[in-house]
């Protein structure tokens, strides 16, 4: 996949092997230009000012909403701009009413952005939380979900791509089990949306949250996609400018569309950048991207195995080009720093998923190598070679 020339960061750092895309991806020039164009050509508020720049900004951002919604197979009317996946997940988890059903089900493999808001509600007594454990291969099978989800369940939260193992999970099946029990399904798409085709309508999700910066887009912009009718059931996290029809000192009448959740001036440059990222990925083709990642993922696993790394998670099932691993005797941070000295950028630690890492047996954390559209087989081979060289240190 010959896209490296589109990435100014790679041009500026030609020797660098960037294997930290699960943390944040690099941005192509098209995205940077789109974001910059807001500041150089539009520069106005959306949905507020009636001058021509204001009108044009509104048009462009609504076009962007339609593009981003279309990218995940959803309606623009159900898409709420957020800062990131975390804000989307918090909006859903804290915005739902648990007065009739108090139970929420999630898995131990989830990101802190899922677990922490749920655990806080649990600790305040607002929900009853059931956390499903994982198998020895770091997956959560459907049967376990089915056992945990029942008619008392209000919400099920899981991911469509795991940030510690790269396993793409079984979100569609979990959503079906949730619906069969009258519960809602909220999907953490932070690692799923960037790495494969997502179809919100087809998969029958209720909520889907994702970030722009992990899918070639800018930081500080993401989206919460919801079934339109469910938006009305959510209580916004924040109130402020742009969220109300009318307001007097005695009464607030909120808007009933997604603007109810978009208090204050939005990250307009980021919105245009995110739409450009969706365009960019669409142009490549998500199927082609998935095939590229499968090739990279297989090569990556082979290199890790040849270096004698302890890899977390199974290769079975759909998988992105992401692996967490440890080398015997090496502390994860030390190894990541040594790789950095060899111009290889990886992440080390718990990846904001400490319970998941504990469950997988990585109690002191791990090193994570995650590839994306701009990475090559040659880079994977060089990574493996370096890892084998570093293994001699431990």
């Amino acid at each position, binding site marked *: 996949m010959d896209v490296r020339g589109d990435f100014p960061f790679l041009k500026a750092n030609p020797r660098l092997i960037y294997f930290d895309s699960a943390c944040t991806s690099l941005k192509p020039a098209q995205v940077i230009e789109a974001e910059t164009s807001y500041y150089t050509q539009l520069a106005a508020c959306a949905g507020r000012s009636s001058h021509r720049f204001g009108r044009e900004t509104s048009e462009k951002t609504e076009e962007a909403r339609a593009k981003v919604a279309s990218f995940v197979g959803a309606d623009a009317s159900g898409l709420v701009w957020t800062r990131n996946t975390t804000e989307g997940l918090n909006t859903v988890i804290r915005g739902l009413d648990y007065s009739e059903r108090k139970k929420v089900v999630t898995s131990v493999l989830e990101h802190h952005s899922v677990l922490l808001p749920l655990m806080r509600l649990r600790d305040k007594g607002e929900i009853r939380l059931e956390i499903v454990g994982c198998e020895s291969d770091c997956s959560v099978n459907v049967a376990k979900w089915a056992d945990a989800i029942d008619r008392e369940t209000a919400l099920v939260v899981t991911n469509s791509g795991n940030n510690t193992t790269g396993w793409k999970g079984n979100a569609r099946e979990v959503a079906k089990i949730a619906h069969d029990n009258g519960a809602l399904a909220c999907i953490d798409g932070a690692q799923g949306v960037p790495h494969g085709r997502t179809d919100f309508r087809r998969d029958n999700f209720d909520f889907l949250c994702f970030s722009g910066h992990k899918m070639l887009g800018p930081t500080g912009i993401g989206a919460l996609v919801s079934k339109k009718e469910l938006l009305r059931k959510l209580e916004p996290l924040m109130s402020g400018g742009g969220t109300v029809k009318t307001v007097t000192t005695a009464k607030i009448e909120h808007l009933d569309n997604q603007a109810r959740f978009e208090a204050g001036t939005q990250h307009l440059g980021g919105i245009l950048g995110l739409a450009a990222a969706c365009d960019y990925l669409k142009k490549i083709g998500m199927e082609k991207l998935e095939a590229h990642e499968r090739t990279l993922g297989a090569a990556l696993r082979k290199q890790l195995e040849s270096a004698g790394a302890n890899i977390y998670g199974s290769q079975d099932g759909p998988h992105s080009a992401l692996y967490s691993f440890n080398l015997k005797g090496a502390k994860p941070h030390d190894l990541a*720093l*040594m790789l950095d*000295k060899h111009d290889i950028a990886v992440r080390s630690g718990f990846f904001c998923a400490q319970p998941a890492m504990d469950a997988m047996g990585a109690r002191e954390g791990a090193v994570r190598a995650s590839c994306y559209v701009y990475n090559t087989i040659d880079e994977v081979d060089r990574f493996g070679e370096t890892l084998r*060289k570093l293994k*001699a*240190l431990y």
Partner: protein
Amino acid sequence: MVLCIIAFFVFAVMSIFSAKYRPLAKESFRCVFRTLMLKPCDTGLDQRIKAEVVAAVLRFSAPLAKLINRYFTALTWLFVAITLISLAYTVLGIYNFYFYGNCDGPQAINACILNDITGDYGRFGVPVPLIPPTALDGITAGNASANVTIIEFGCFTCPYTREDESTMKTLLQMYNGTIYYVFKPFPLPQHNNSFDIARAVLCAYDQNRSWDLQDLVFSNQAQCMSGGDTELETLAQGAGLNMDEFNTCFDDNQTGAQLATYVQEGKEAQIYATPTFFINGKPLVGPQSLSVFEKAIAAAGGPAAPGGS
């Protein structure tokens, strides 16, 4: 953590000269501070330094890099110990410089710097030309009509003058009757009891026993400096002096005046350290080896060294 202690010292000093090291100094200080507060260091600076060192070594030797990687904590403790020892020696050097005029202390074999007498810092400043004295009186030995005259300004409480004494004795024996040696006492005010000791040796010289007393003084230099007149009297008795004559001489103003003359000669010669030698007028500062004296004597027109060294 251990590494942060060293890093703090190093980066703190480097920060004085370059702003780019200041964030690192702050980071290492935070690490040291947290450690003192019994909290874990959270900066990761030590890990980054370790990676830097190991990666650099790995470029040319994998086994050495492995060794460093494995024993890094032990090595950092070793460096801490070396740093602390260096620091202690630095403090000791400053102390010695303040009290003894040199960084090496009273037992060192260099020269006693006389900056507080002459106002000149000698090797630490711009050297001044030394002017050979013309008077040949002092504590003398050898042949007064010899071609070569060695004049020495020295202090009996100066460890470097002491160091030189055996060389002078050897020279006088080697060049038996062919050189003339003049010792001019130059007591240093920063050394305790130095003037009284010089007076005592002058009085011993009157009784022709100056070498006996100065041998005892040099071998008991520290006690002489701390023991005062009582110690001196004991040594004078040990040197076999007539104590009545000694005491009379010691209290005689004439002895003091004679000593003052030698000190004045030293100042006029602009010496800045003891011992300072003039070999037929050519200066040599600090204790020198026998071969240096042999060459200087030969250069001054004296006989070749007996034994051909």
